[in-house]
């Protein structure tokens, strides 16, 4: 679909966790949600929070062609996202979408590892679906603080081989993601989204093993359109907008 401003209806608001809601949205005017790419995000207008002025960027978790649904996994970070999480079913939310670049995928890479932490798992679902549709069955490594912080596991199991690591060992392997045994095997490509320390650790692992690696950044942004120049990331090409040149970057282009 062409970049646009569009009203979406909340089909379902699933509270997955005290801090997370899964919003299932569909365009009010029925526009087909085609051509939305893994890694892209939306800018959501927050109408009912006194303390929120700007839109909030939320990465696209999933697109269901059959029901023309767009899924947003929303994590309570502040008043804006808190208010978005409370949006009742049937209400309208206004989105600007689709925004940003995409993860680069190819069926040449057979041994692909998707690594997601926290709300960073969101884009990995759509990416995994895409890979699977291309005949590549990805491995997915999800890191979380604890067992209860793991989200959308069933959806991930459907698209690939699921690996889990938790800080407290309550599920999967004990420790941070980069300590997981899955890294003993050889990989053609890492795709990663999560907290900055985690992405940096994965980037280090990629360099050490000579694995190609793309990460999705979450810099704070105002417009999401490349106009405000607020969300810049320092790259080998200088400061670039995460909202337009990103959010997906190959670690070779980054300065960390």
């Amino acid at each position, binding site marked *: 679909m062409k970049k646009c401003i569009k009203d979406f209806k909340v089909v379902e608001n699933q509270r997955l966790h005290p801090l997370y809601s899964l919003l299932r949205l569909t365009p009010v005017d029925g526009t087909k949600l085609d051509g939305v790419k893994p890694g892209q995000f939306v800018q959501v*207008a927050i109408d009912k929070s006194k*303390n929120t*002025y*700007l839109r909030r960027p939320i990465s696209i978790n999933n697109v269901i062609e059959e029901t023309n649904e767009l899924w947003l996994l929303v994590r309570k970070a502040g008043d804006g996202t808190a208010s978005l999480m409370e949006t009742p079913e049937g209400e309208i939310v206004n989105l600007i979408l689709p925004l940003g670049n995409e993860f680069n995928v190819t069926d040449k890479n057979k041994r692909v590892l998707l690594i997601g932490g926290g709300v960073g798992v969101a884009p990995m679902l759509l990416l995994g679906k895409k890979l699977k549709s291309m005949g590549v069955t990805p491995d997915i490594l999800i890191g979380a603080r604890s067992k209860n912080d793991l989200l959308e596991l069933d959806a991930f199991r459907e698209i690939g081989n699921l690996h889990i690591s938790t800080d407290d060992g309550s599920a999967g392997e004990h420790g941070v993601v980069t300590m997981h045994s899955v890294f003993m095997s050889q990989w053609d490509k890492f795709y990663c989204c999560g907290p900055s320390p985690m992405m940096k650790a994965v980037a280090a692992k990629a360099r050490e093993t000579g694995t190609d690696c793309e990460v999705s950044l979450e810099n704070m942004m105002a417009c999401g359109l490349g106009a*405000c120049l607020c*969300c*810049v990331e320092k790259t080998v090409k200088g*400061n670039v907008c995460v909202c337009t040149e990103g959010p997906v970057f190959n670690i070779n282009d980054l300065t960390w």
Partner: protein
Amino acid sequence: MVNLEVSIGNLKLKNPVLTASGTFGYGTEFSDFIDLDRLGGYIVKGTTLEPRQGNPYPRMVETPSGMLNAVGLQNKGVDYFIEHIYPTLSAFKSVPVVNVSGAKVEDYVRVCEKLAAETDIKAVEINISCPNVKQGGMAFGTTTHGASQVTKAVRAAFPGTVIVKLSPNVTDITEIAKAAESEGADAVSLINTLMGMAIDVEKRKPCLSTITGGLSGAAVRPVAVRMVWQTAKAVSIPVIGLGGIMNGRDALEFILAGATAIEVGTANFIDPAVTVKIVDYISEYCQRHGVADVNELIGAINR
């Protein structure tokens, strides 16, 4: 049929709605959402003599009904603009205005000379009020002497319309405006951002890499309207009003305060289509109030 055309110096605008520098990119970023040709004009992002990387991240923090930014004039420089951006602008009918920033008077002059020599850009907006770079010109914008200096030099270097963009971080903005007028500015635009600051109390750190930044958005509107009203009474050249315009009603507030045209800034971030909605609202308002020509509304408040 309502007449919406207004004049800024020799510059004719089909309507009073412009976009504020640094909030609308080069215009093309918004062509997915609006028909650029419907705007009176658009002011492209701050252009300097040399390319600038701007300030480090973080550059932005949300504040009550507004935001602080510390972009620091990131841009690829005037030569890049002339070579790569300017050609693309010819595709649009709306008037492009180039916002010019500099550290030294000569910088402003050189940029304007290049624009005059190598483009047919009809107007420049001289930014003597950027709070985010040591030599962002705010030094020039906070004294009558500085404002005079830059305006005089630019006036000599650029044959087209010269708009001087003023800083609100002053005791008396009308003095600065008069200084610019006396040195030949065709118009003044105000307000640039108010200098502000925010602190992350949990991290005990400033929210911006530069500690202080520029406050924009609805929060500053009352200050902007007041300064536009004061300035419009003090000078005889046109005043272009900006500062927290979120919708058509807000735009009319500035026009009634004395603005001949208005610039929409931060609102573009929240609704990329807001500018054309404002054009429609102004025309609808004029019809509703039996006003045949928007120029009749300029400064038309009765106590």
